């Protein structure tokens, strides 16, 4: 609630159902992100990336726009919670998220186009997760090479990092594939959001 000093009238910002949904899912992604940061990592930059399971589930359930929100908010809030905001770790995280979101957007459009030709040609969770994971690692790697370690020796790390990315991408794809039937059969929870009229929701 905002009280505007000039008019003395009350402005109420009402979140739409979509806002609340994104907030809930982002909270879940952030929790996973923070929990995962406690895991020790054998290689710099190698993480299971379990938070991306949430991004992918959101992509399949609510579309690309919602996935962008959840992913970028997760990177931002996760970095604030971990104290890495605006550090190299944040830059790597953000570049990875941006790259994977871009690839996911392109893959989703392509997959919809292909599905019109033949239904078996659309990408499922596993393909999407693989693409997202590889793009994430690729984006991170290019960011690291371009800004932080412009040394050719870094490329020696690329094959094992990509192998890990493919492995974890495949695994999270299987997780998403196992989750989706349960999520889709869930009746929408009307109680989660208060009555909401329109998207802007700004009422004088």
């Amino acid at each position, binding site marked *: 609630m905002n009280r505007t000093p000039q008019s003395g009238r009350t402005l109420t910002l009402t979140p739409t159902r979509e806002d609340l949904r994104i907030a809930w899912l982002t909270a879940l992604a952030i929790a996973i992100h923070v929990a995962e940061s406690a895991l020790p990592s054998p290689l710099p930059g190698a993480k299971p990336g379990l938070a991306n399971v949430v991004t992918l589930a959101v992509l399949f359930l609510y579309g690309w726009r919602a996935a962008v929100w959840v992913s970028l908010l997760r990177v931002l809030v996760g970095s604030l919670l971990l104290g890495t905001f605006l550090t190299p770790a944040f830059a790597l995280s953000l570049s990875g998220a941006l790259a994977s979101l871009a690839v996911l957007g392109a893959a989703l459009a392509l997959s919809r186009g292909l599905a019109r030709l033949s239904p*078996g040609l*659309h990408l499922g969770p*596993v393909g999407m997760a693989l693409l997202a994971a590889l793009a994430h690692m690729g984006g991170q790697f290019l960011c690291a090479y371009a800004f932080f370690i412009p040394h050719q020796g870094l490329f020696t790390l690329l094959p094992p990092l*990509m192998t890990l990315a493919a492995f974890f991408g495949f695994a999270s794809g299987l997780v998403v594939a196992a989750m989706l039937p349960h999520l889709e059969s869930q009746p929408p929870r009307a109680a989660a959001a208060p009555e909401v009229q329109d998207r802007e929701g700004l009422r004088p």
Partner: protein
Amino acid sequence: MTRADYGVAAATLLLLVLLYTLFWSESRAGFPGDGRAEAARIATADGREFTLPLDHDQILELAGPLGTTVLEIRDGAVRFLSSPCRGKLCIHAGWLRHGGEFAACLPNRISVAVVGPRTLYDSINF
């Protein structure tokens, strides 16, 4: 998994194979700006220093305080073939191929360093 998923998985495997051949093979062809080492920088006893390309096979005879040291350049690598010194450490160094590799015959005061676009070491201290 859909057919497209299998396609993506196959493409991923191909990508990984490509990455390992590019960056983990002996030639290291994938490194930006890389090639084989290109030249040997040779310093001799009289203080002269000269650079010879490694793609041109030849046998060099260099005079030092103990006698003649013979260097061989072949197939993009350089080695000490013989030297009149006692320890023969320079000969045991074997073929020098990669940028940054270095061998010297201190008794006969001759040294060889490979210079190339990519070096194995950032710096070396003795």
